[in-house]
């Protein structure tokens, strides 16, 4: 990506991310009481991560609409990761299981 296009993006990303972390930490010294706002802040991480994962995870292994083996791999990875996560395994274990499932399914390509 040309640097002239990259640098403004970088400045906005880093600046916004830093301010979100730094402003409350440096300015606020009291506890938030508003119940709706507290609840909203409690739920937002789950909502964000879900919206980022579904359906993007299905396109994370090279599926572009034609390569259905890649789609099968991603779907298998999603199921395997979902199963392991629901059983309470840690981040690294779940991530590696997803990779393993994709590798297993996509390696079919070498045989057909």
């Amino acid at each position, binding site marked *: 990506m040309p640097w002239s296009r990259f640098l403004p993006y970088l400045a906005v990303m880093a600046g916004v991310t830093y301010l979100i972390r730094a402003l409350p930490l440096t300015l606020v010294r009291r506890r938030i009481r508003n119940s709706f706002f507290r609840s909203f802040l409690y739920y937002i991480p789950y909502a964000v991560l*879900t919206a980022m994962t579904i359906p993007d995870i299905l396109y994370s292994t090279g599926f572009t609409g034609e390569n259905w083996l890649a789609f099968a791999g991603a779907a298998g990875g999603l199921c395997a990761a979902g199963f392991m996560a629901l059983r309470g395994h840690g*981040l690294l274990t779940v991530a590696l299981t997803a990779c393993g499932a994709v590798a297993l399914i996509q390696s079919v390509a070498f045989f057909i």
Partner: protein
Amino acid sequence: MSDRRRGLRDGIPIGLGYLSVSFAFGIQAVSLGLSPLQAVLISMTNLTSAGQLAGIGLMAGGASLVEMALAQITINMRYALMSLSLTQRLGADMTGLRRAFFAFGNTDEIFAVASGQKGELNHHYLYALMLAPYLGWSLGTLLGSLAGTLLPVFFRDVLGIAIYGMFLAIILPPARSRKSVAAVVLMAACLSLAFRYLPFLRNLSGGYAMIISAVVSAAAAALMFPVGEEDE
């Protein structure tokens, strides 16, 4: 053991975890057309997985700077809550400048470890805690972005799913034990699918679709299932 050594030690498992996740980020960044140096610069200045991943997607899609800012605000809003929560725990040595410095490293995992400590948090512990995660995150991005240009497509495809697997590991366990979180996950998934595949709705660009999906489902859950102080 001194606070500094304790912080260093507590940061090492986080750093190792970051190494593998940022490796996947580096691969993704290069596949979207960024150079390894650009990928590493993003990691060194942002230090956040979800925000960076969405960010490079927006860059590749040619999004506006406003859309980039709004997406980062939505995705990273959780850090505001974590920072708020930590203000209640900081020792008297944490002056304004020191708070401003530590704020840079307040990631999900660092927050989780820091808030699990007993007693007040001082700058010796917090600075030391940030070190290994920061190095792991930057180094993993460098290795991933270099590997991304060298690795066969097969391995890039396999590793591409890693970061999403990690997200599932964060979302699903609490969704299983709390009905309210399950409702949030379900709503956000349905909205996100609708914005991707339904006519008209799918014309909206990815950043805004994610923002609307997340904000609407979190707000709906906040109305339906208010969180009590003791729940956090």
